[in-house]
């Protein structure tokens, strides 16, 4: 029961963020300062999830070349940067992880 209440809460916050400017506030309501700050949300939110997965695959920081997640992640980043392809980047990163892990 509490699980479903939590999920309804997730729906409420997610949907209101998506509705916010389109239907709730109107596009004049957002101040330029807020609009500019929003520009930093995607890089901040994405890297806050990526960094621990890549630099701390166990429970502690691992910057050694033996950290296969770090090496595979770096390879995927280079592919994403040069090829601009999500699919290719994921595929090459997974292959790197498997090759390094064997």
């Amino acid at each position, binding site marked *: 029961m509490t699980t479903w209440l939590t999920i309804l809460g997730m729906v409420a916050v997610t949907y209101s*963020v998506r509705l916010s400017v389109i239907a709730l506030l109107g596009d004049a309501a*957002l101040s330029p300062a807020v609009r500019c700050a929003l520009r*930093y949300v995607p*890089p901040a939110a994405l*890297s806050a999830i990526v960094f621990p997965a890549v630099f701390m695959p166990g429970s502690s920081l691992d910057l050694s070349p033996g950290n296969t997640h770090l090496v595979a992640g770096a390879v995927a*980043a280079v592919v994403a940067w040069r090829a601009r392809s999500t699919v290719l980047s994921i595929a090459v*990163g*997974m292959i790197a992880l*498997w090759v390094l892990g064997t």
Partner: protein
Amino acid sequence: MLSRRAEFWGGVRAQLPILLGTMPFGMIYGIAATNAGLPVEVALGMSLIVFAGSSQFVAAELFAGGTPGAIIVLTTFVVNLRHMLYSASLAPYLRHLGRAWKYLLAFLLTDEAYAVSITHYEANATAPARGTARHWYTLGAGITLWVTWQISTAAGVLLGAQVPPSWGLDFTLALTFIALLVPTLKDRPTVLAALVAGIAALAGRGLPYNLGLIVAVLAGIAAGVGAERAGWAAPCGAPASPAERTP
């Protein structure tokens, strides 16, 4: 001017290549949620009504760790806050629509549907939005993604226990985010925002309930805004959106 049907199918076609990334992503979410011990109906229910991949992954992990619901909701809010940017960006093109259309398209507003829609709208921005069927393009793209997300989540839940953890499939989440992150690094303030958020997330790893994630995102935003104010990049003004330009 294209017909409703042509716009709708245009959106569907634009979404097709992106599905190659969405399908494994959805399957891996299904597998991860099952392995985290989430009941099948909860794993599928999140896909049906939350419909936000990255936050579903994070929430599955938090549910498994017994995190209080309020923290899960707050974390979801922070992870999905980037959709406000999409909402702000598409709003000028949808302003003329009725309430039902706005509520429908907002529900379908994901990273992927936004990406193809804004490209399509900006390419056709010379004509006024009113009177065109352009919003059908977003509907086509959004429905395609929603249906694919349900099917791939269900496939992941069914496969669930049969995929050994040694395959490391959960790492595709990090890889997907790396692929989404790289194009957002457009100038020095955005790079700094990513670095500060990333390092703060590492430092905050020990905090209970994954609260380090929320702190890290806020620190990253503050760093980006600070760098911009310090003159690291041209200040972000409020450029008139293409839809507002007079022809």
